[in-house]
């Protein structure tokens, strides 16, 4: 009987190596494959997390590495949690987070609903709508800075056209009341297409047969929308909210480019404030405590959200 290529390779393998390969159990092989990932996860995520928690109890400053590091206990946490300025940044973040998510979900779902209808130029419109998402946040920030200029900005002229006000009479990024809305509008413009794409995937996953059955039962379009479309798209919508929520909680580049956190501190989000504390004021211990507070908040929120998402999926 002639040897197959596999047999030839097996015979050509040196005995010591063959013994070593034969000796590996499935469990060992699985560990060999998983170990690099676990090592990377420990090195890049877990170790810095533990180190940050440790630093949050000290007065360490990274720009003074030779200074003695004192253990300050919970003092950093006490100072952060009684600071009215940080409280104000939390409120600015909440305003940004809530309004961007509400607007992006509403507009994104509406756009997905329209794009899901079959019409001429459907693909072209999808590409055009998705375009803002492909740009860099820094570019979008710069771009909207020009749009918001009171003298030459297109945004002021559009608002003036509809409201009859003088375009130079208001400044979106210079006014303490309008600046928080300026960042909401820019972020909504950029990230609504992302929500739209996720909703579109959800809408396209609904089989036509369900709508046909509803038609046979004489269900109205309104009824079909609330009893078929919304429940079946809900897991996708919740996923979009989770992604956008986490992303917007750490929003940095777009806002820095657009307003720099001003005027005053009205658009200083937590991530911007944290960066200033850590890398401009060099208060490493203090900013570590700040980061731990934000981490626990996001982790807690994400935990209950994922639980809710799983419940919706199970239905």
């Amino acid at each position: 009987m002639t040897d197959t290529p596999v047999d030839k390779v097996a015979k050509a393998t040196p005995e010591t190596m063959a013994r070593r390969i034969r000796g590996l159990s499935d469990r060992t092989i699985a560990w060999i494959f998983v170990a690099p990932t676990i090592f990377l996860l420990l090195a890049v995520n877990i170790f810095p997390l533990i180190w940050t928690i440790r630093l949050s109890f000290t007065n360490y400053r990274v720009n003074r590495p030779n200074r003695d590091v004192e253990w300050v206990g919970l003092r950093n946490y006490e100072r952060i949690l009684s600071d009215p300025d940080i409280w104000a940044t939390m409120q600015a973040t909440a305003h940004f987070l809530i309004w961007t998510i509400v607007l992006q979900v509403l507009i994104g779902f509406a756009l997905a609903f329209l794009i899901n209808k079959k019409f001429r130029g459907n693909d072209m419109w999808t590409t055009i709508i998705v375009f803002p998402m492909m740009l860099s946040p820094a570019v979008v920030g710069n771009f909207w800075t020009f749009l918001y200029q009171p003298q030459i900005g297109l945004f002021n002229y559009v608002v003036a056209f509809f409201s009859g006000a003088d375009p130079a009479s208001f400044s979106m990024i210079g006014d303490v009341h309008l600046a928080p809305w300026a960042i909401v509008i820019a972020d909504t413009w950029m990230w609504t297409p992302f929500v739209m794409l996720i909703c579109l995937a959800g809408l396209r996953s609904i089989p036509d047969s369900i709508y046909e059955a509803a038609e046979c039962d004489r269900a109205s379009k309104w009824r079909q929308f609330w009893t078929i479309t919304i429940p079946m798209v809900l897991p996708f919508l919740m996923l979009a909210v989770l992604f956008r929520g986490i992303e917007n909680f750490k929003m940095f580049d777009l806002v820095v480019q657009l307003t720099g956190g001003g005027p005053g501190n009205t658009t200083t989000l937590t991530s911007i404030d944290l960066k200033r504390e850590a890398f401009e004021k060099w208060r490493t211990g203090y900013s570590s405590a700040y980061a731990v507070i934000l981490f626990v908040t996001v982790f807690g929120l994400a935990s209950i959200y994922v639980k809710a998402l799983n419940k919706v999926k199970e239905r």
Partner: protein
Amino acid sequence: MSSFITGLLRFRRGPWEMVASILIALGVIMLMQPFAIALYTYSFIITLIGTVMFIIVSHFPE
């Protein structure tokens, strides 16, 4: 309501996760509300308790 309390007493996952979720949500609302700085001060400890509780109780039996 009585089944909820029974679940708590028997260390069942559902009701305990509910308690932990309420604590987390309460902590986050306290952290970001614009009304009282005292609520903001105690927000983190409540969120932390809720989060740690959530991690622990998610290992309880159904």
